């Protein structure tokens, strides 16, 4: 339904690599031009850039020992002051520093889990769309079955079964959230494969791998990109949820972990809003930014949806 642009010339795709690359660049430029017109998407992108910057420069800005408990500079649970803009946590650590430092884990888990989820989804979707017959039937049956599994319940169960670590959280999120991507990618794959040039490529002796990697994959990539962006948003939320429910590694500092700490320290009923509010806002803003970007990408690819404008 979208982005036939890169391969419109059909058999010409088998021509010189340079030509193909040029065409891809052109379509990227076209994509950007259209993306630019989505104000919400731009806002999201700027937000993401800021958060990425904060996360990447955290070792320089707040330093690696911001999470040290023995070297905590303040008293436990201090309210915001000139010295600690957001107050201190239960150990007396600077909450602003922790918030900055926590962005690294939250974003990392979000990215990795989304990558894992989309990778599984794309693999399943492309192969199920490419190989028809029993293989596809079984695969889509499994997909449908995962789709009906209560994701949160399954993720909690997985996180309980496996040892508590970041890897477990990534796995629990990734393994439970891929089916939507698989279904979307499969539909797109079917659409792509029904085009005549695929027939031609097959006739010219292109094997399964060739068809899937050279023709199908580049065509589903935009969809995958949109899906990844949206998936990061839900992965960041999922990470916070699992950390909040206490099935994550308690010594790793993330936004969800901060919220869990805050709750365990009794911040809610003590009125220590400064411990509770910033991590939640950070989670919401990042999730929102990714959602905005994802929707903008989606509507560039499929203008009929008319979202985001």
């Amino acid at each position: 339904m979208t982005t036939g642009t890169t391969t419109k010339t059909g058999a010409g795709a088998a021509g010189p690599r340079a030509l193909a690359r040029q065409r891809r660049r052109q379509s990227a430029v076209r994509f950007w031009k259209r993306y630019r017109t989505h104000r919400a998407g731009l806002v999201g992108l700027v937000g993401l850039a800021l958060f990425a910057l904060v996360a990447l420069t955290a070792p320089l800005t707040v330093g690696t020992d911001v999470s040290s408990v023995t070297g905590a500079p303040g008293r436990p649970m201090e309210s915001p002051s000139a010295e600690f803009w957001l107050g201190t946590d239960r150990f007396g650590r600077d909450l602003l520093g922790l918030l900055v430092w926590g962005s690294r884990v939250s974003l990392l888990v979000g990215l990795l889990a989304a990558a894992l989820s989309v990778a599984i989804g794309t693999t399943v979707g492309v192969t199920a769309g490419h190989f028809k017959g029993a293989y596809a039937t079984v695969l889509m049956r499994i997909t449908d079955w995962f789709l009906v599994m209560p994701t949160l319940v399954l993720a909690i169960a997985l996180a309980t079964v496996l040892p508590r670590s970041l890897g477990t959280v990534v796995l629990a999120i990734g393994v439970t959230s891929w089916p939507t991507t698989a279904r979307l990618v499969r539909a797109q794959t079917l659409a792509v494969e029904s085009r005549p040039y695929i027939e031609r490529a097959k006739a010219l002796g292109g094997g399964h791998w060739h068809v899937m990697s050279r023709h199908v994959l580049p065509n589903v990539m935009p969809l995958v990109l949109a899906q990844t962006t949206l998936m990061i948003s839900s992965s960041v939320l999922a990470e916070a949820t699992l950390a909040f429910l206490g099935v994550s590694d308690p010594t790793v500092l993330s936004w969800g972990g901060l919220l869990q700490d805050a709750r365990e320290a009794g911040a809610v009923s003590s009125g220590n809003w400064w411990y509770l509010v910033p991590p939640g806002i950070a989670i919401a803003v990042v999730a929102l930014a990714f959602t905005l970007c994802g929707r903008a990408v989606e509507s560039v690819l499929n203008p009929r949806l008319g979202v985001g404008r």
Partner: protein
Amino acid sequence: MSTREQHSRARRLLAAAAAALTVSAGLAPHQAVAADGDKVLTVAVAQSVDSLSPFLAQRLLSTSIHRLMYEYLTNYDPGDAHAVPALATEWKSSPDKLTWTYTIRSGTKWSDGQRVTAEDAAWTFQKMMTDEGAATANGSFVGNFREVTAPSPTELVIRLKKPQATMTALDVPIVPKHVWEKVGDFSEFNNDKDFPVVGNGPFILTDYKPDSYVRLEANKDFWRGAPKFDELVFRYYKDQDAAVAALRKGEVSFVAGSPSLTPAQADSLKGEKNIHVNDAPGRRFYALATNPGARARNGEKFGDGHPSLLDERVRHALFRAVDRETIIDRVFQGHAVRGEGYIPPRFSTYFWKPAAGQELSYDPAEAGRLLDQAGYRKNGDGKRLGKDGKPITYRVLCHATDPNDKAIGQYLQEWWGELGIGVRLDCLDNVTDPWLAGTYDLAFDGWSVNPDPDFVLSIHTCAALPATPKDTGATDNFICDKRYDELYARQLAEYDPAKRADLVKQMQSRLYDTGYMNVMAYPNAVEAYRTDHIASITTMPEKAGNIYGQDGYWSWWSATPADSDDSAGDSGSAGVVIGLAAGGAVLVAAGAFFALRRRATAEDRE
């Protein structure tokens, strides 16, 4: 079907829902005083009931409720916790220490009017001795019983296999035989279907809804005197913050905390009008237990505790790098007492603390020297190597549900990191399995100590080890020490209190020196109640002690209602007014919005 109709119906539904929300917001039910003027004491608890059958219940909440429902043979004095008469008015042991005779209080009645007799007590114990299902919760109390008989309605005789110093501390609810003998399968009967439940304690159980509340009514005929409150409700709050907020609002009269309020909660409640924070010495010790190499009674070793921990110097070094002051100051924020011996100072009879030369005080430099001496030296990276040449990393078992475990774990990571020793925190919801399997190096450990310390002492004897690796022993963490065991046997057979206390102190000294159980703190019982609901309440010990989870029923039985309950009512009616006003405003705004939208649509588009 016309779409217009559908549409307006949807709108009506929305309006109705909004109205329902508004109305319900306004009508905040009153607490403290029920409609019929009964004085109600509502307690916020964080635990749910596992079973209301005294034969099955193991959780603190359930056993506390049983204290209120059923009278036990003896009770503990609120002052110094010595045994005082309850169902039994007096007791004596035979010269050979093997026969105990209890005189059962005459003239008391079950709540259904039947007489309470020695036969009820005998039947309760006999049931536990013969029916495995009935032995689930309290089977350990009758393990050493040879025979229980009731020669007369006022006389109960228990014959023992071996002498047992704890015969005045049998924490077993005595149930009415005439009710319970009809029960078929004790392992499945939960005692939660027929209300009111027949009992003879200060309160009668009248209603229970799982994960919501347990309701008890005062037993006006209770032999010690009727409770001052008419009703006692334990209300379940999964979330401690919600419970504290409920206390602030007066929805509940008392918050127990699980196991106590956090420092932040206590501090914020202290400033509050009409709320008293009871910050009293607790009955728990909070320790760092070391895996001494798990083994069974048959000598078989199992588990995979780190071999370096078998060296006493290493254990001492680890504890000397633990700054108990920081733990008290930062983690408990003053709501705990620095750890010394095994039994908390609250039990003054048995409390012991190490002499100056014996104490393992905080001294990281000395810790480093001890490790060097033991042959665990640092490599080029500053990591200490085990005898296998690999850097030492200890697995520390922690309870995922206990914030203190996680917090102190992070300190340990940094303190021991300085020593060159790695720490991996294994925080689990359920630590039982690695614990029993001995697959840990160190573990956060804690027990509530009873007035009679026998139990917490017994769990470190060789006899408590599992018979084979396949069994489960009563052992806490596989400690087995000859000298400790000798002392334990002597104190159990010692019926003279002073001599027994001295033996118990010697045991603690021995335990301290082995370095297997390092007590870091005695956490306070931090709880809070509303002074405008509760005028007075007995703590245990009376001078400074806890209210929730006492060894007797003193707190709830003694609680007296405050005279005026108006303050709660005032805020309630203010709530009604404001709620109604807010809801009304929302409704008007919504109505105006829809009306305007409709008109606008009509005008624009026509």
